[in-house]
């Protein structure tokens, strides 16, 4: 538990060092003065920290809107996309992984393991482009990008059709990685003595697999899913760019291109917070799933 406090004390530290020194050269000297960019780097950083303690993240260099407001508008879509992708990925990975483990060394197992390799090896942006080409351009089943139809009526269905392709791309990569974890974890558990007991008691194989084995196999999986969150956020940068999804990934690219440092600092802070929160959630979930672990 101590770990989290130590990390929490240093949000953005390694990053901020990189961000501050290079002040945009194209910005006028006068504006630099107003924004305080001519101050020494250390002073800027401490000013930023001080403002942070008061809940202020400063104002965007390009639009002068408060950073908190800009990020606040963008974070919802990203969380929506990322969590939908995580759920979708796990919904594929857990059943497929279990089946692969139960039917170890059968055709099904080999095909699924092979597919999971392709899933992890395909570049997300290539898969995304391919899907846009097939399903949006050729078949016209889904829109090519964006979150809602511009000028359209909006609503749940509209949003859903916009979500399917990006969620699929992000989810497939997660599923590809996790299938192998679930499979390995199930195989470990299935060799345990208590499963032999359960089987010899004459319990139905379905119950043995899903009640006795799965619960124990889930423990390592929870940890692995928690570790996936930073990668998911990173992946969403590419996906949001391809699908024109108005989330923080797209904002990152825009801010980098316009050298909007206050926003970038804010984004990194938010990203670190998301990662820390999910780490904490992972720990709590772990405790909930394993009665042997108790936090005191």
């Amino acid at each position: 538990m101590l770990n989290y406090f130590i990390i929490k004390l240093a949000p953005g530290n390694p990053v901020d060092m990189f961000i501050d020194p290079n002040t945009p050269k194209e910005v006028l000297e006068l504006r630099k003065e107003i924004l305080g960019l001519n101050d020494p780097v250390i002073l800027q950083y401490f000013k930023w920290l001080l403002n942070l303690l008061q809940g202020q993240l400063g104002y965007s260099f390009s639009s002068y809107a408060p950073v908190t407001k800009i990020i606040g508008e963008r974070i919802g879509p990203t969380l929506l996309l990322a969590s939908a992708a995580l759920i979708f990925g796990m919904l594929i990975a857990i059943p497929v992984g279990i089946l692969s483990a139960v039917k170890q060394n059968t055709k099904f197992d080999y095909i699924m393991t092979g597919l999971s390799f392709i899933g992890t090896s395909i570049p997300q942006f290539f898969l995304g482009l391919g899907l846009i080409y097939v399903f949006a351009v050729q078949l016209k089943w889904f829109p090519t990008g964006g979150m809602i139809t511009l000028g359209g009526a909006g609503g749940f269905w509209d949003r859903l059709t916009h979500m399917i392709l990006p969620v699929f791309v992000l989810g497939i990569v997660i599923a590809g990685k996790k299938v192998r974890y679930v499979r390995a974890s199930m195989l470990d558990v299935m060799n345990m003595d208590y499963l032999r007991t359960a089987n010899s008691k004459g319990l139905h194989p379905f119950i043995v697999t899903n009640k006795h084995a799965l619960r124990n196999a889930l423990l390592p999986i929870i940890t692995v899913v928690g570790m996936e969150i930073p990668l998911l956020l990173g992946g969403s940068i590419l996906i949001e760019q391809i699908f024109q999804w108005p989330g923080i990934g797209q904002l990152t690219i825009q801010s980098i291109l316009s050298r909007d440092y206050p926003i970038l600092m804010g984004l990194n802070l938010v990203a670190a917070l998301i990662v820390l929160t999910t780490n904490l959630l992972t720990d709590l979930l772990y405790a909930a799933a394993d009665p042997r672990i108790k936090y005191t």
Partner: protein
Amino acid sequence: MALSPYELDEGSMSAVIPAESVKPETEDAFLKQLFTRFIRHKLAVAGLVITVLLILVALLAPWIAPNDPKEVTGVFSAPPSAEHWLGTDQVGRDVLSRLIYATQISLIVGFVTVALYVTVGTLIGIVSAYFGGWLDMLIMRITDMFMAFPFLMVILVVISILGSNMTTIILVLALFSWPSVARLVRGSVLSIKQLDYINAGVALGLSTPRILFRHIFPNAVGPIIVNATFGIASAIMSEAGLSFLGMGVQPPTASWGNMLTDAQSLTVLTDQPWLWVPPGAMILLTVLAINFVGDGLRDALDTRQ
């Protein structure tokens, strides 16, 4: 010398760690066993063959590429023809030649990045585990910090400041990849440190570096090799992703990633598939091949089976 309990102990040890380099002939036998195990993994062998072919393509690029990758040689955006097998791009450069030269970029980024961070990570991991105490604590907290950040986001920011070219990409990718190796190495060194033969080495008065590099490192090398192999694949993928976003290798130098950038426009995506399908397929093929090799190595080195 060979007391029976000692022999017994050594026997059980080599069951856990076959890399134990006691005598040259056991090492040979180990390598042979490794080879037979690797060969059994059909996909890994296929992956290895493809990887070797790709390395050959990269090395022989100047001789097999039909045109100069940076030179305008034909009409722009021409579909595939006898003259240009994969057509030409939007400026009129030969797509096939660019594809071949881009192999160099990807493989260099993959191998150099991994060589760099595996070396650094291994050294840090060994030091951290062997000395322990506050140093270990400090190093582990640093790795925690590195691993908590969304990798790609931070890399993008750093690259946007340092400027994007192949050297910065390699350095930045290595900078954010060493912590996982350090942790892996630390873990295996910690478990090896407990073994009796290390105590014997200390008792014999061997120097610390000698114990670290002659006696501990060879036994920890298996997982490092597996990790490095997967690392090459992921570095290649990261480079492609960065170049795709325009934050990586810059045109006119060809990289599979920046060849895909054009496909963000719907006209290219719809009407000129020869521009974006081949580089994407090459990334997939390369990464898949290297991952299969990694999987084969993992199975071959995994002595639990």
